[in-house]
């Protein structure tokens, strides 16, 4: 199935789902308009031969990093002389549309056709919650736990949505741009 055929098939089946303005590399990329479309689209993709969920992740689009999150090393530039104050550059890229939202991404692979399709969805940043794909794809289990652990996104219907990578005493979700590190026993 060529990229154009796939786009037209998805368009015919799900009229609300549109082609993403910027594709991920040269893979066919579609953007969902609401989270309710995720499960029907995944079911359809699975029936169409995209039988493997390769990856799911998310990006926090809040914008410039707050240096408060890095209290371990105030002076992050080792070449500065003692007592000099580091000049903190803003991480903001001019012209980039920062906004309080989470951009989620799922990547489905067709093992037989050796093709891949990327599904994206933008959700509000506070209390982000999307349907879990664990009933459809077993591989979603740990990846959804990782996305929950690092970005604080809830997956409705996940059988065991617990922390997976960070220690149990870590407060907050480290990959959120407004994360502030709370001193723990490793900081002393």
């Amino acid at each position, binding site marked *: 199935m060529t990229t154009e055929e796939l786009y037209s098939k998805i368009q015919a089946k799900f009229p609300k789902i549109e082609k993403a303005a910027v594709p991920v590399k040269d893979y066919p990329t579609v953007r969902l308009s609401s989270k309710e479309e995720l499960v029907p689209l995944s079911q359809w993709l699975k029936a169409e031969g995209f039988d493997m969920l390769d990856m799911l992740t998310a990006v926090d689009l809040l914008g410039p990093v707050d240096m408060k999150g890095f209290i371990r090393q105030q002076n992050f530039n080792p070449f500065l002389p003692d007592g000099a104050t580091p000049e903190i550059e803003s991480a903001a890229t001019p012209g980039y549309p920062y906004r309080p939202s989470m951009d989620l991404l799922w990547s489905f692979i067709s093992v037989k056709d050796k093709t891949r399709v990327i599904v994206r969805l933008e959700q509000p940043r506070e209390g982000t919650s999307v349907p879990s794909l664990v009933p459809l794809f077993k591989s979603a289990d740990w990846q959804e736990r990782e996305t929950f652990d690092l970005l604080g996104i809830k997956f409705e219907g996940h059988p065991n949505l617990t922390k997976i*990578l960070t220690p*149990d005493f870590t407060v907050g979700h480290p990959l959120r741009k407004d994360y502030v590190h709370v001193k723990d026993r490793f900081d002393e």
Partner: protein
Amino acid sequence: MSNATTAAHDLAQVPNPALKSDQLFINLGPQHPSTHGVLRIGLTIEGEVIVKAVPDIGYLHRGTEKLSEVRNYHHCVVLTDRWDYVSAMPNNLVFCLAAEKLAGVKTTPRADALRVIMCEMNRVASHLLFFGTYGIDLGAYTPFLYAFREREMVLDLFEMLCGARLTYNYIRLGGVMVDATPEWLKRTSEFVEYFKPRLDEYDTLLTYNPIFMARTKESAS
């Protein structure tokens, strides 16, 4: 962690209401960081039967994404060395290729050739480590000594060129750290010629080794 019903650390509490009277909770691991990856498994056992296994991963999670948020691209090359610390060159390479693609930077043919040579040499060193320690895990100690004899030579070559033996930071954005000297190229060709017959030696030592055969044959199939 209000909904943490089956996280490994929850099962470890004493007394544990989730355990039945004839069940026992034991920790498998965590192993020391110098072993092949740290993993802890919280096991619930009934006699000798495992009724539940909850893996606890993340002991080697370094938070590279978070660290990269406050560093520029040159700083991040150092972080990539630590992803898979026995094959740091390919890690450097993939990061540099991605960053160069974003910036639209072209590298010179000589830099490309050096990158490929270094990555291949690192692959040899990394695979020597793999098969040597795999033998150790199965109880065959001898192949490890042979593998590390040759691995040492590759690491010496790396040390000669970039000064490091494990985390090289050699492949940089737009090229490599330093050009190869004629002496280095000569010694590398010598090593390649020396290494070719060694493969037969490893084959003799490990491939039909009875211990190796007994412990790998018809397993994990």
